[in-house]
């Protein structure tokens, strides 16, 4: 297929060259039916990259000290040479914004364009988690609104006041997402916004009533059920709607933090898939360009050098080991799916009757659309790959003095290893399950949240600090309980602290 002209492979990039490479990459991407948002590619300096880093990938962020801390950390370790900067940052928005660093060579820029602008971008546009839970069209507008709103609040109510509130919200950020219920779209802008204002107004009226209503009236509620009638998993939402003492601007800020948390929630659940998908496509696209004679050997050597660094997986006993490299696992899995489609062995046919021998591009798109890390691994991790990566699972029971090897990469172990790896990416297993359990509507208005441990894993010590933040938001006493294995309930902590009372 040596039909295309060789692209200039000198190391320095120019905007004209970027355009040429982009055009070539775009054509190849179209061959593979990669469906993307329009691309907006921005060239930035390393300082600007550090800025982008510290605002956790939000192109527009409100001011907060924790971003300053991250910035200082990044700057320090960059200046000391302890870390390099990422070559790119890509934002799930429409148009999809990708940052390229000016220090990159032309090869790197091409890699980044293929990786971010076609890999990540198409993942954002097609994966079900992103399409259901985030709204790429309006996120930039929303972030801008959030930034302005918060800076207005700072002017009106003072920086300290806003900062305290944000600190508390950040502490509970992970518990500010809806996991099972789709949030209403952020767009539908105007209408929604107006309705929101009304709602908040009503809410504050309700709270006023709540505060001043005579005691006997709440006796009626006593006869009724607990409040909330069912445990609530989205603690920030619960506070936004129900905390008695908050003012409407405070509720709005809680809402902002909640929305941003929700926006990032899919990214947490698709790290392996997202990075694997993008890595697979930069690899495939650039190789296709090479096959078509558009890029030179020199280009490919530099590219492969970088690519190999990215997908390196150190073994468990290496000094460099720090968990499973999502790039490595994801890339290997997508390559493996392609292999199963194109060249299945008997084993593959046995394990993957549906996809063995099917069209690989179709299968990959199907995988990209309908899975998250957890389900992706349990669906597609093949015995072949487990052998190749020499995966094995261990059980670490703190009651015992030793660690058990529960399964390895052999016939008896495949199912077990796959299941264990899949669980490892299930957020429900990684993040503690804490829910709003009860509010003493008729009494001291104390709020009770309950921790449901998984596999007897206790809550880390930081819980005490977080509880203080929760107390600040709620305004009245806050209790943290733990449900034990035998079904009994332990009162873990109270804020403000007091002597532990008898359990329920």
């Amino acid at each position, binding site marked *: 297929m040596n039909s295309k002209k060789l692209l200039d492979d000198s190391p320095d990039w120019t905007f004209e060259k970027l355009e040429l490479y982009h055009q070539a990459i775009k054509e190849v991407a179209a061959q593979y039916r990669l469906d993307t948002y329009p691309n907006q590619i921005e060239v930035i300096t390393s300082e600007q990259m550090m800025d982008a880093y510290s*605002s956790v990938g939000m192109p527009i962020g409100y001011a907060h000290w924790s971003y300053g801390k991250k910035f200082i950390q990044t*700057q320090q370790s960059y200046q000391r040479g302890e870390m390099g900067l990422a070559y790119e940052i890509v934002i799930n928005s429409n148009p999809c914004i990708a940052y390229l660093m000016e220090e990159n060579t032309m090869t790197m820029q091409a890699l980044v364009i293929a990786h971010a602008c076609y890999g990540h971008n198409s993942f954002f546009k097609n994966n079900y988690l992103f399409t259901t839970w985030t709204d790429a069209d309006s996120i930039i507008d929303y972030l801008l609104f959030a930034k302005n709103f918060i800076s207005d609040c700072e002017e009106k109510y003072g920086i300290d006041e806003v900062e305290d509130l944000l600190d508390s919200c950040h502490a509970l950020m992970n518990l500010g997402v809806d996991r099972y219920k789709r949030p209403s779209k952020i767009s539908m802008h105007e209408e929604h916004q107006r309705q929101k204002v009304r709602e908040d107004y009503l809410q504050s009226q309700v709270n006023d009533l709540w505060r001043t209503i005579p005691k006997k009236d709440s006796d009626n509620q006593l006869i009724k059920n607990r409040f909330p009638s069912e445990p609530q998993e989205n603690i920030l939402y619960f506070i936004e709607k129900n905390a008695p003492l908050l003012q409407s601007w405070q509720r709005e800020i809680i809402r902002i933090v909640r929305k941003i948390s929700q926006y990032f929630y899919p990214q947490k659940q698709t790290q392996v898939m997202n990075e694997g998908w993008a890595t697979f496509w930069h690899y495939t696209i650039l190789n296709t360009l090479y096959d078509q004679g558009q890029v030179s050997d020199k280009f490919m050597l530099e590219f492969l050098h970088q690519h190999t660094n990215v997908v390196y997986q150190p073994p468990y006993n290496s000094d460099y080991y720090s968990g499973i490299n999502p790039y490595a696992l994801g890339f290997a899995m997508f390559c493996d799916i392609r292999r199963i489609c194109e060249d299945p062995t008997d084993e593959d046919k046995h394990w993957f009757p549906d996809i063995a021998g099917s069209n690989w591009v179709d299968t990959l798109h199907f995988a990209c659309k309908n899975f998250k890390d957890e389900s992706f691994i349990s669906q597609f991790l093949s015995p072949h790959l487990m052998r190749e990566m020499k995966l094995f699972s261990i059980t670490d029971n703190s009651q015992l003095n030793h660690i058990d090897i529960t399964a390895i990469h052999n016939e008896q172990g495949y199912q077990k290893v796959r299941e264990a790896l899949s669980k490892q990416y299930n957020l429900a297993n990684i993040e503690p399950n804490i829910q709003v359990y009860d509010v003493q509507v008729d009494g001291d208005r104390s709020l009770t949240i309950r921790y449901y441990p998984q596999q007897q894993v206790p809550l880390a010590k930081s819980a005490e600090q977080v509880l203080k933040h929760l107390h600040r938001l709620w305004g009245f006493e806050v209790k943290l309980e733990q449900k034990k294995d035998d079904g009994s309930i332990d009162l873990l902590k109270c804020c403000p602290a007091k002597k532990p009372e008898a359990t329920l």
Partner: protein
Amino acid sequence: MANFIDRRLNGKNKSSVNRQRFIRRYKKQIQQSVSDAATSREVTDVTSGESISIPTKDLGEPFFHQGQGGIKERVLPGNDQYQAGDQIARPKGGQGQGGGSGEASDSGEGADDFQFNISKDEYLDLLFEDLELPNLQKNKINDILEQKRVRSGFSTVGLPNNINIVRSLRKSLARRIAMTGSERREIRALEQRISHLVALSPSPTVEIEQLETDIEQLKKRLQRVPFIDDFDLMFNNYANEFVPSSRAVMFCIMDVSGSMDQATKDIAKRFYILLYLFLSRRYKTIEVIYIRHHTQAKEVDEHEFFYSQETGGTIVSSALKLMHEIQQNRYPKDQWNVYAAQASDGDNWADDTPLCRQILSQKILPIARHFSYIEITNRSHQSLWQQYQLLADTYPQFAIKHITQISDIYPVFRELFQKQLV
């Protein structure tokens, strides 16, 4: 479809507001770090930033996460020796096997402090935060005047070594253009005529020759105009002017007898830094002389000044004498602005006090631009203060102030220098 945007020229300090927020939030810790740093750097070092460290544990952002313990399952890559059912000893350091859940940073209490650098301005702001570092005003202090030769335009007479070549040649050029205008105009006209005649056929040879000799003559006249003439010459002109001297000497005098503890010295040091800053806005060259004394005075370097311990009694006049001596020998009063700051806890040998007053009023105050005395003590004033009080009433450039804690320094400093605004 793609849209390339060059953002490199956009501001790079998008995070600076966040950085300020960070500094604002951790002001207390940073200030602690700054005041530690202030005691360990030189008084005259006001141009560099400072490295700050904050204990990592103060910086945490808590969130709910799983702790140690319980039953955890994990998948690891690169099996090289294990079979299912093997039991292995738990590696030391708890979570040694790592795990993809990103908890490692929370379980390992990072012992290292969080370190970063602040700029010079941030450093000064923080150092004088409780002192509200002022916009030091340029006061109308009667500085010493120095004679200085300054350029003052050009003149047509002067010494050959002051010739201004550019100006002279410009004039010469102008003169030549002016003097040769009519000749050149004539030459042009004649040349035009010749070219006109040449175009005719047959060309009138005689007439052309005539015209050519005319041109020849005109050109000779042009050559006779001199390239440069006496009245082309321009000279740089100089005049004498009086300018305030840009040199100052600052005497730091401190009592180092046993009764002065390190805290007191640190307060004094802040005062010296402030004075130095103030002077550095006004003068190009500042020399700082450190004189410490107990019963005897000695000129020392900065380190010894602040950190060496001495015991013994106190005779203040010894330091004043030494200061006067140094000033007489090295800093003549017509070239140097003399400033002095004396810090003490107020102790002095009783018989010596009248002598101090005498030296000050006769020798030092007449030549000093400013002399400030700060007494850092919680006790009641002693004879030195009372004697100085009398001096302060008569000499406007002499100021005394009482300081009990660090936060007193700036208000005192401001008062001291407001006095001069007469």
